Every structure is written in structure tokens, then in C-alpha cells.
């Protein structure tokens, strides 16, 4: 703890599920400056009436996805004073109710962690090379770009 400005970093793209407690421990252990930890978990949801979604497959561009996530996290640490970020994105076959993504951000005050979490999720959705394909009882279809998500980037200009 020689400086406020050496935030901890962890980026992981993997098939396995995550444990939010582990990531929080990683970010807060030893660092008594952390007063706020905001986490976001994105899950496979099924909004259809009769559980039509069978599973989801997530594909990514390995040589690029980790780099993009790392760059986004760096941007966040330049914009806000953060104590640490842990970001895990799962790939492969995931079933309804399963976790897709975990973002944990630690900071001194809550405002920075909330803002940085929103910022990272907005850009992750629109700039990180991951693609979702949903398989329902009637077939498979690639998830389409969410226009609302795209417009959310404007608030960070």
C-alpha cells in the first residue's frame, strides 16, 4: 500500500463458473482503503413463457477479447480512482440461470465503483468480441445487437 494508484487487476475468460466471494477477497484483502465494492453478475435469462430457451453458446475472439477487456479496465482506472477490478467472462455452453459475466470493482467511495461498473458493462457489451447464440426448442439464432446498449455509450462522452 505505498500508493493510492496501483489498482489490482484480474481479467479471466473461461468456461468455469466464478465465485464472487473469492474475487471480493482478492480485491479487498490487506487493502484497508476499500470502503465500497460493487459487483455485477450477468446471467442467462429466459423471458419466454414456456421456458423455450434450452441453452446459450458464447463464442469469442481469444486473441482480441482479453486485450479489449484489459484496455477497458485501464480506461476505467484512468477515469476514476479505483482500488481494483476483477472481470470474468464465461464462454461455451451455458444454461438458463447460469452466470455469464462477473465484474467486481473496489474503491474508497461508492460513487466511483458504481460509475466505473456501469461504464465497463456498457463498453464490454458493445466493444468486447463476444457473441451469443441461443438455442430454443425451435432452433438456434445469434443474439442481435441491442440498440439500447449501443446508445448507452453516448453517456460516457
Amino acid at each position, binding site marked *: 500500500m505505498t500508493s493510492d494508484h496501483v489498482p489490482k487487476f484480474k481479467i479471466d475468460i473461461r468456461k468455469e463458473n466464478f465465485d464472487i466471494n473469492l474475487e471480493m477477497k482478492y480485491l479487498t484483502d490487506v487493502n484497508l482503503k476499500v470502503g465500497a465494492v460493487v459487483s455485477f453478475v*450477468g446471467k442467462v435469462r429466459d423471458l419466454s413463457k414456456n421456458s423455450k430457451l434450452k441453452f446459450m453458446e*458464447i*463464442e*469469442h*475472439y481469444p*486473441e*482480441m*477479447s482479453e*486485450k*479489449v477487456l484489459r484496455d477497458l479496465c485501464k480506461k476505467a482506472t484512468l477515469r476514476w480512482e479505483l482500488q481494483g477490478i476483477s472481470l470474468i*467472462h464465461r464462454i461455451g455452453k451455458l444454461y438458463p440461470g447460469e452466470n*455469464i*459475466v462477473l465484474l467486481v470493482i473496489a474503491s474508497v467511495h461508492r460513487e466511483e465503483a458504481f460509475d466505473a461498473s456501469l461504464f465497463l*458493462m456498457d463498453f*464490454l*457489451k*458493445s*466493444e*468486447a*468480441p*463476444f*457473441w*451469443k*447464440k441461443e438455442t430454443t426448442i425451435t432452433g438456434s439464432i*445469434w*443474439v*442481435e*445487437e*441491442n440498440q439500447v446498449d*449501443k446508445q448507452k455509450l453516448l453517456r460516457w462522452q
Partner: protein
Amino acid sequence: MNLLYFASLRECIGVSSENYITDQKTISGLIDELVKREPRYEKAFKNLPMIKVAIDHELIADLETSIVGVSEIAFFPPMTGG
């Protein structure tokens, strides 16, 4: 150079990557050339404004960006992660 295709583009073209030699100098020239190659490319690049391009792992916005000397070009639909 190495061409990479992801998600719906990969499924449409039928391969995830291929080695490709071209005299084209820009992304738009390369796409024109691919589209003329075979119907599966034409189909893949049909909705061109929706297609994202990354050169050597860097997203590019301008289709007139030079591809001279680059080693990897990836084509894919809008991202839907998170």
C-alpha cells in the same frame, strides 16, 4: 494474411479462418474481392454496415483503412457479450 470470421459470419462462410493473398490495399477493396469470390462471401457481407472489422486485434471504423503489411484481419457481426 490471415482472415478470421466469427459467429454468424463464420457459419455463413463455413470456415473460421483462412490464409489469403491479395493485392488490395484497403478493407473495402478486400471485401469487394471476397464478395466476388463465391456466393457464401456475398451472402456473409450482404449487410455491410452491420459488419465489424478488426485489424491485428484492433477494431477499425473506417473501411478505407490500409491493410498493407497487416497479418490478421477479423470480420464479425456486432458484439453481444456481457
